């Protein structure tokens, strides 16, 4: 009865019959109160959005899987400390839980939300090393600004690792079958002899080791040690591990080293070598492409991108189901998603081969015929799997590289990287939103508008990035489109902070700043970890001149995401207005450090430096701004202004003449030129320019200023006449 009920509950869960599942599971647990059933019950609750029930049910349970589910429930309820205590000790948990990478990822999230950034980064990195296809971990690293180059994380090492993981068992299995490899035929595999748990244990160790190897850098020393400590299968992997560490450095040698290394070992090793050779035979071009780490080549880029995109898709796909369906590997939630159909066979083979390999030393049952037939099927499947893996990792690499560039505001590079995607991948909501964001940061609002509208056409339900789109429309003063967007977003999801941000932008455009502020606050309420809502609230507060609240809002945004350079900018502007210039400089510099490609930030930093009387530095900064974005007229204007103060009037005039050509209707250019001519004592020219400036309808303050200036012009004339 227990098995029947458990099965039925699983089935109901799969079909999303949640109430059914909960009810039956409660009956199951009442009848057979075991911790496994309790875990199932908790899963039912979590599925039905009842984290509190899961929390109470699992409180105090010590089994690894229970602790993991308990931590998930705690996180949903924002109970960080309890979640953390549940997830420690980590290593033991990783060994027993099916998703060791997920554990690291959760710890990373907890640390990030409790302001322990460094350890958070470490955890994310570990998650990525355990599972190179864990996109969410890479994404978080990018947001924290600590991501390594995508090519490293989703590089050949990772490909190899994933391939090995899936193919290794199969290939070794195959190699042993290949007689020309001089394998000890007695080293056949007792597939049936190994228990699944033993296999899983080894799998877990292997994969963890290989993962850690693959990650390269700081993790290298760890795994080697671990490997020596691990169980019988460690010898199998001792061969590849040092090789793998080399893999992370460069591409071509590892393969050869693998083989050579293998050949030095006993039959176990030779099987590895055979596996590698086999791998090479079948996928030589592909693997060479990946191993010969040529970042310029599309293939390796694709590989990395594949991995990255895979990680991204992974997040969105139903990892768990696939994994559980195809493999029951401990380490590989991620892998399951990769190997949906194709890998199924291979994984079984892998399991079989690894188990058999590890036990080859122990078990020497010979089953040649079975080996041969299975080998043949493995050969055909493994090639598919390998190409699948490398394609996936390629995709992930491109996407990850693009995402990382965008997070570090290298927008042009991000755009270039995204161009490398296939049109199938490019024309998706996520990618187009990213492209839109890149154009937005480049102040190219037309292209941003185009990209975002395309994204909306393709996936109208995807609201991520739509807050940025609403800002683009706001800045382009397209109020019809903005209103339409806001209406659409709200109708899709009333509880999405992006929708409320769009509505707030609408109201702000109508100059109804109070309501705009309320809308942004509503977005904050819906998700207090959405930094842009805080930043927009700050902007609105500045417009209504409530600087106290504005500072608070910006600081909240920075608390959530210290790399949100717009909040740094906002704070800098407030301090600039309040004449607290040193503070302003500090904040603009922080913004500049985060986004060193924004000409607007450079412009303000330059203005602040000028206010601090550091004119040379100010000029340098303005030059940088001009070089960064030639279309931005403000740094040029400001430079002209600074030159006027420094007395270099002719240079200033040159710049202003250029500006005049491009922007003939900008009153301030003429006003400044009028000032310059006045200093040159060319009163008629000065008068002319002041007149044009007035014609162009400047603000009231400027009208007064210019008229006063004209008044002063006339006086010297009169004085000269009188003399």
């Amino acid at each position, binding site marked *: 009865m227990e098995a029947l009920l458990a099965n039925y509950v699983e089935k109901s869960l799969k079909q999303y019959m949640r109430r059914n599942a909960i009810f039956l599971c409660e009956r199951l647990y009442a009848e057979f109160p075991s911790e496994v059933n309790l875990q199932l019950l908790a899963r039912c609750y979590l599925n039905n959005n009842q984290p509190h029930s899961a929390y109470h049910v699992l409180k105090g349970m010590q089994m690894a899987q229970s602790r993991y589910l308990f931590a998930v429930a705690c996180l949903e309820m924002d109970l960080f400390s309890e979640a953390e205590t549940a997830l420690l000790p980590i290593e033991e948990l990783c060994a027993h839980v099916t998703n060791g990478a997920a554990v690291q990822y959760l710890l990373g999230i907890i640390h990030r939300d409790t302001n322990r950034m460094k350890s958070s980064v470490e955890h994310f990195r570990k998650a990525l090393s355990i599972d190179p296809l864990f996109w969410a971990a890479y994404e978080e690293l990018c947001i924290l600004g600590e991501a390594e180059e995508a090519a490293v994380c989703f590089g050949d090492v990772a490909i190899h690792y994933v391939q090995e993981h899936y193919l290794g068992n199969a290939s070794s299995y195959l190699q042993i079958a290949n007689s020309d490899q001089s394998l000890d035929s007695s080293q056949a595999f007792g597939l049936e002899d190994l228990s699944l748990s033993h296999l899983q244990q080894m799998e877990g160790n292997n994969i963890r080791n290989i993962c850690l190897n693959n990650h390269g850098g700081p993790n290298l020393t760890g795994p080697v040690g671990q490997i020596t400590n691990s169980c019988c299968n460690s010898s199998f992997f001792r061969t590849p591990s040092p090789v793998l560490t080399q893999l992370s450095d460069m591409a071509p040698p590892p393969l050869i080293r693998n083989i050579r290394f293998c050949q030095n070992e006993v039959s176990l090793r030779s099987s590895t070598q055979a596996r590698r050779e086999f791998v090479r035979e079948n996928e030589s071009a592909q693997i060479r492409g990946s191993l010969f780490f040529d970042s310029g080549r599309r293939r390796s880029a694709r590989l990395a991108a594949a991995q990255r995109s895979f990680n991204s898709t992974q997040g969105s796909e139903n990892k768990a189901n696939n994994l559980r369906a195809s493999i029951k590997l401990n380490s590989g939630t991620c892998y399951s998603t990769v190997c949906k159909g194709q890998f199924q066979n291979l994984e079984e083979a892998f399991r079989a081969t690894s188990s058999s390999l590890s036990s080859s030393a122990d078990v020497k049952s010979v089953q040649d015929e079975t080996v041969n037939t299975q080998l043949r099927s493995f050969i055909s499947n493994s090639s598919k799997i390998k190409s699948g893996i490398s394609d996936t990792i390629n995709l992930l690499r491109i996407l990850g590289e693009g995402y990382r560039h965008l997070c570090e505001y290298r927008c042009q590079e991000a755009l270039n990287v995204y161009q490398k995607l296939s049109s199938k991948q490019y024309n998706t909501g996520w990618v187009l939103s990213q492209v839109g964001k890149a154009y937005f940061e480049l102040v190219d609002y037309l292209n941003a508008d185009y990209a975002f509208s395309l994204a909306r056409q393709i996936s109208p339900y995807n609201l991520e990035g739509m807050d940025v789109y609403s800002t683009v429309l706001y800045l382009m003063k397209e109020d019809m489109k903005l209103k339409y967007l806001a209406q659409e977003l709200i109708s899709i999801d009333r509880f999405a902070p992006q929708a409320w941000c769009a509505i707030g932008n609408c109201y702000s455009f109508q100059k109804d700043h109070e309501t705009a502020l309320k809308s942004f606050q509503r977005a904050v309420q819906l998700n207090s970890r959405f930094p842009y809502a805080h930043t927009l609230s700050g902007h609105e507060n500045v417009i209504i001149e409530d600087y106290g609240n504005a500072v608070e809002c910006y600081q909240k945004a920075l608390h959530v995401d210290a790399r949100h350079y717009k909040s740094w900018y906002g704070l800098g502007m407030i301090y600039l207005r309040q004449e607290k210039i040193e503070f302003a400089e500090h904040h603009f510099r922080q913004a500049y450090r985060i986004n060193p490609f924004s000409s607007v930030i450079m412009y303000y930093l330059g203005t*602040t430096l000028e206010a601090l009387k550091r004119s040379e530095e100010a000029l340098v900064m303005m030059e940088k701004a001009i070089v960064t974005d030639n279309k931005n007229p403000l740094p040029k204007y400001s430079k002209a202004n600074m030159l006027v103060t420094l007395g270099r009037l002719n240079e200033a005039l040159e710049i202003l003449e250029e500006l005049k050509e491009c922007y003939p209707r900008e009153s301030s250019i003429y006003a400044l030129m009028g000032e310059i001519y006045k200093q040159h004592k060319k009163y008629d020219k000065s008068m002319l320019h002041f007149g044009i400036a007035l014609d162009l309808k400047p603000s009231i303050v400027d009208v007064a200023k210019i008229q006063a200036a004209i008044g002063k012009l006339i006086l010297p004339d009169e004085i000269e006449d009188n003399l």
Partner: protein
Amino acid sequence: MATESSESEEEGKITGGNQHLIVEDDLREMGKKAAWSVSSCKTGNGVSSLRDDNLETYWQSDGAQPHLVNIQFQKKVKLQLVVLYVDFKLDESYTPSKISIRAGDGFHNLKEIKTVELVKPTGWVYLSLSGNDPRETFVNTFMLQIAVLSNHLNGRDTHVRQIKVYGPRPNPIPHQPFQFTSREFITYSTVR
């Protein structure tokens, strides 16, 4: 400024009033930063009725003329426009007729800067504080006093429904000599 009220030939006389309050974008309401007080008021019709954005409520004075509305700022501000909502049709003898605007540092040195006579006003009445000289577009002052010197039909007390005070918007980009007018300049001037 859209003023549909017609100024009669006699200087300082304003007839009629606007139904809608339309002020240039360059100006912003400065009253929120000021302390408002009145010389006298009837219970229930105090100074808050002057600032509640509700044209149904009004301030009613309760003492001798002139009736004063005092607006005091914490620092010197530039002011350009005073707008009153008064309605002869509703208030008849309570409607102010002669208004004097004074400015200064405090009660001790207020100087009259503008006098105006209203003739049967019905709506928003705009009183510009600018002088003729372009250097006098704004009044830079700590305090503004609006004095109601006399009412229509020789009424003793006065009703004023709303008062707003406007000054220029500061340059959105600090430390720039002139404000920007063209779209491209403004686009590049903010990060949002």
